[in-house]
């Protein structure tokens, strides 16, 4: 509990707000004619990490960036994962609750199961990345005597296709599970709100024409199949609003 919150709670206790004084997450009895529980500045703001939140080693980060650049390439048609800084998104995610699998059910026993039974790795996402990236480097060294990042784009695509189509297998972890997870995370990082570190300057939203997290489209419901040219807006506004 930070100081500000502690002061709030103290004040509420002095005012006799017993229901409100219970810290978030603990059992509280509400109601009994007391009306709605409410405390100022208790909004559940999103957790999105900071620039200091990192999980990958510099080498791991390089490989993840290189893979993302092939999954969502920068090309004549428009920007890709590199411009959107998808690797920073993934790095922050791995450093947080998601990478730790904190909200996932991670009790054993473990068994591979059928495809319809979903993710069954004993490793949370961050550890799966770490082990798989090491195996990917081993594979590239044995097949090409090079690091993944030093392969040509064509060679990189061939390796990634091999993971996707289960032609390449790793020893300790499933190459396919790793590939599917990374593709999912790359798409998340490309299209998520920029507060999470990817989709930098809403570059992906602008590319596909998504106007972002606006809250009111009533003026456009009757669009009759015509384009709606609107600049995208993020949860924290857009450059024209938030910068001089």
């Amino acid at each position, binding site marked *: 509990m930070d100081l500000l919150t502690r002061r709030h709670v103290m004040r509420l206790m002095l005012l006799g707000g017993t229901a409100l004084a219970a810290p978030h*997450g*603990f*059992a*509280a*009895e*509400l*109601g*009994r004619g*007391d*009306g*709605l529980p*409410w405390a100022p500045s208790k*909004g559940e703001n*999103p957790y999105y990490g900071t620039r200091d939140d990192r999980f990958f080693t510099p080498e791991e980060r390089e490989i993840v960036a290189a893979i993302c650049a*092939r*999954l*969502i390439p920068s090309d004549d*048609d428009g920007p890709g994962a590199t411009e959107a800084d998808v690797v920073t998104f993934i790095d922050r995610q791995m450093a947080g*609750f*998601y990478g730790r699998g904190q*909200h*996932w*059910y991670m*009790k054993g*026993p473990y*068994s591979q*199961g*059928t*495809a*319809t*039974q*979903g993710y*069954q790795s004993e490793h949370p996402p961050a550890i799966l990345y770490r082990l798989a990236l090491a195996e990917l480097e081993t594979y590239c060294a044995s097949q090409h005597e090079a690091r993944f990042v030093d392969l040509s784009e064509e060679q990189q*695509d061939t390796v*990634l296709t091999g993971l*996707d189509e289960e032609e390449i297998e790793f020893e300790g972890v499933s190459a396919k599970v790793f590939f599917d997870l990374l593709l999912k995370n790359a798409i998340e990082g490309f*299209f*998520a*709100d920029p507060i999470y570190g990817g989709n930098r300057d809403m570059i*992906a*939203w602008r590319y*596909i*024409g*998504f*106007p972002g*997290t*606006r*809250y*009111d*489209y*009533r003026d*456009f*419901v*009757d*669009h*009759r*199949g015509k*384009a*709606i040219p609107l600049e995208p807006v993020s*949860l924290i506004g857009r450059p024209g609003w938030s910068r001089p």
Partner: protein
Amino acid sequence: MTKQLPGVDIVLVGFGWTGAIYAEKLTAAGLNVLALERGPWRDTPNDFATTFAQDELRYYWRHGMFQEASQATLTFRNNSSQTALPMRHWGSFLPGNGVGGSGVHWNGQTYRFLPSDFLARTHNEERYGPLPEHVTVQDYGVTYDELEPHFDYFEKICGICGQAGNLNGETVEGGNPFEGPRSDNYPNPPMQMTFSQDRFAAAARELGLSPFPVPSANMSRAYVNPLGLQLAPCTYCGFCEKHGCGNYSKSSPQTTIIHVLMQRPNFALRTNSEVLSIEKAPDGSMASGVTYIDANGDSFFQPAEVVVLCAYPLENTRLLLLSQIGEPYDPQSGEGVVGKNYCYQVMSSATVFYDEEFTNGFVGAGALGMVIDDYNGDNFDHSGLGFIGGGYIACHTTNARPIESHPVPDNVPSWGSRWKKAVRENFLKTTSVGVHGASMAHRSNYLDLDPTYTDAHGRPLLRMTYDFTLNDRRLTQHLTPVAEQIANGMGGREVKVNIRRGSYDSVPYQTTHNTGGTIMGADPKSSVVNRYCQSWDLPNLFVAGAGLFPQNAGYNPTGTVGALAYWSVDAIINQYLRQPGPLVQP
């Protein structure tokens, strides 16, 4: 050590839609009601404010408002020859958590089941002869006509926006000509439709079908409900399903009931309080209350005169099994009832891609859509088709949230430059015609306790054994081509059909319409509760929710869940309290 608490008249296990409904009626009747909710308090200004509610990563992909799988999940297998494994994170469906439950993050598509849906066995056998062996479809034990006033009241509580098609037996132009007779019109007019719905409706009419507006819990105008709570016009922001509404535009327990409850001195709510079991009186004839654990790990025994299970259907089933109430279902013998007739929903679709026109899917709302019911329930002749039931076929524009929604044509790879370009070309130019198919009960689909995996408190997880049935497969094979035919008439460049093939897959999101496990019926040998949703075993135990459905109809469940809750609580107040005991003699 379990601490004994002072007794209450009624204890509600779980505080979503049905908890709020029971609490409102029972407190209004003067009873002392306590709701125990596993998750936290949630309300619009703090928890889904407009400043951060539209966060796709947080609320959908990181499961911001769902049950935490780390606390309790379920195990899944397609059939009993496999070993069930835990769903380590959610996929196919998303059980809610916290005050309001899944009623916070639903879309708001609010249907009434058809009169024949409540008589699924008698009606179909009368018309088509005996159902196949192992099809365990049953009647509800309650009829549409008995539920009608309760459907009507729930629609008024929610302010549902729609167009009646059958008012007291008179057909009304523009509504659903197949619906059961309604005593009143919807309280609000339909939502304003967009380009995609206009195209869908025109194509459906061209085929001789009868399109009507999807009954919507997203407001078409400002509304004050019978409890005096106010809802605001929907802004078509496209963040309904999987999100809370920051705008008071979507009916939820919060926006339609809870604020009133919190003013009543005879209502209390304890949050972060998870019920571990229902306790029985020493002679086993009645429920004595519930044992729950709070976030500090302290456990309490809460005595109550009446216990109502208002948790999600999967958890209601697990609680009965853990508390050893009712005979667990055995798929070998077909005997037993708890966990029986687990059903789901059979979904398929046809995506339309346009070249010139923009569908602008981001201008959307959870229940913004046009729909046909010509192929639902028994609205068409099933002779010789080899299946019963059906589904609605609809064109919704619910969202274009970009992590989730970027359909691409056939033969486009799933990553790389060609994929990226196809996403850009089609993101603003697609719509979908969806089939929302019924799921008929089968002897081999059921819920029981897992022998291996346990939750955070060490209790067995629920185990789901489920696959699509022959009836489901024939149903989807018959209906999907109709969706394709409508889609072909919508003037696009191409249509991509997404058929339902293979085994049920727990990974991709399909729908949070899990039904059965605590089914209602006319006979204690084949149902868990009677027609008033009262336990056959313990007369002061009632069960709410879609777990009551003996099989799932081709509609979203919430309208019928609401009507059944009002029907049941009415029976508690007007029958049970006057003379406590079984309301139906077995």
